[in-house]
């Protein structure tokens, strides 16, 4: 089950130093320069993201978390709110684009169109491609992150083995939201090093491998433990419907069984889940509320 796809491109403006070595004057100038180039083409209006929202976006892994502290980055939404411009964070300009489900091709064309619209001169050399402060990214300077739900592989502790194997192909599989036990919520990160067609094939092959393995293991698990599985799903739904206070650990455990049950067709009750999500969002529990907002998206799929 693919919950969300995020594509990011990392660009630096020539001939300025990369952000770790950028002084504050140049930083400010670059912000204005980049904003103006997007503003000129009517790509952004005054959609600067507020401070409060930035932390939320960081929690949701939609923008870079670790950035050089001496430069103040700026963040902008594009009209659809599913495209975020990061200026002076890890690189001079990072364009993040995301959507629910696995729409890699659609997002890819959208992000390249956006890049071509600007008249900025990016740091690019014929030998190394687009130059970035992180040498692992240089070349295409593009990454694709897929947020996937693989409960049975996670429950059977098979993800660490897959992750080790994928490292040989420079693919990163790690848990998101809640570590060390991510309860089936994983992200797959690919860094482009080959042409577009080969890159697509690499993503497709890896995804097929993981998702088919997940399906097989899920069927095996449910076949062997039908009653136990149904019981766990129903209990989790019961807790969700009636509990007033639950710990974050309990929350994730329950949500894993609910989504898994929904995926396998055991739960058809869509409304109750969504209503419950909304009720919990309204409570003053910021961290959980943010996660729940995200979960609501996944519950729709």
């Amino acid at each position, binding site marked *: 089950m693919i919950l969300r796809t995020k594509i990011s491109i990392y660009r630096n403006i020539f001939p300025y*130093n990369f952000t770790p070595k950028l002084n504050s004057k140049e930083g400010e100038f670059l912000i204005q320069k980049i904003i103006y180039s997007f503003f000129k083409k009517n790509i952004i209006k005054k959609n600067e993201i507020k401070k409060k929202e930035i932390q939320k976006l960081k929690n949701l892994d939609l923008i870079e978390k670790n950035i050089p502290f001496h430069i103040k980055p700026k963040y902008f939404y594009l009209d659809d709110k599913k495209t975020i411009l990061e200026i002076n964070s890890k690189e001079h300009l990072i364009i993040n684009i995301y959507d629910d489900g696995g729409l890699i091709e659609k997002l890819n064309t959208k992000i390249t169109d956006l890049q071509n619209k600007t008249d900025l001169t990016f740091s690019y050399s014929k030998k190394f491609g687009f130059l970035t402060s992180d040498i692992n990214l240089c070349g295409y300077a593009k990454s694709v992150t897929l947020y996937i739900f693989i409960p049975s592989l996670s429950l059977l502790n098979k993800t660490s083995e897959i992750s080790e194997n994928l490292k040989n192909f420079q693919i990163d599989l790690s848990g998101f939201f809640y570590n060390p036990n991510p309860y089936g919520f994983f992200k797959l990160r690919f860094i482009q090093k080959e042409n577009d067609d080969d890159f697509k094939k690499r993503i497709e092959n890896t995804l097929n491998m993981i998702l088919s393995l997940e399906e097989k293991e899920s069927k095996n698990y449910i076949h062997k433990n039908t009653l136990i599985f149904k019981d766990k799903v129903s209990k989790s739904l019961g807790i969700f419907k009636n509990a007033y206070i639950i710990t974050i650990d309990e929350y994730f455990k329950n949500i894993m069984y609910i989504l898994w049950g929904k995926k396998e067709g055991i739960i058809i009750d869509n409304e109750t889940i969504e209503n419950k999500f909304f009720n919990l969002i309204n409570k003053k529990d910021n961290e959980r509320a943010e996660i729940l907002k995200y979960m609501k998206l996944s519950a729709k799929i």
Partner: protein
Amino acid sequence: MKCEICRENEVEIKTRAIINGKIKEIFLCRNCIKKYKIQTITKPKYTDYLKLLIEEISNKKSLICRNCKISYIDFVKNGNAGCPFCYMYFSKILEKIIDINPPLYHKAIEDLIYKKEKNGKNKILKKADIYLRFDDVDMAKKHLKMLKKIKENDT
């Protein structure tokens, strides 16, 4: 057995020495050791490699990006480059690490100051033309000399 250098005297010492950056076992006479001031190694083997390693590191220590002053050692340690020119200063080493067919883009650093003529040779553009190709003239002036130097060293 005769000495490996003079081929006259009998071998008195079997030793290991660093020749052309590689550790080799050689058989020498005392005269040649004195004559050519060969440093004989009597310590355990790992020190030989350590010496080589130190030698290599000290050679690369001198590699510094003239623009952002980042050294090659820092660059490798952190995996972070300081500026686009780091890639040009460290290009010979980076070529061995980074194996990539980069995507096409119409504004390459190399093209910003050079123009290909009909005979295939690169000609440096006039200053005014170069400034036109940059968005920021002050920055262009600042970096123009450096770009030329890097290109001259490459050729």
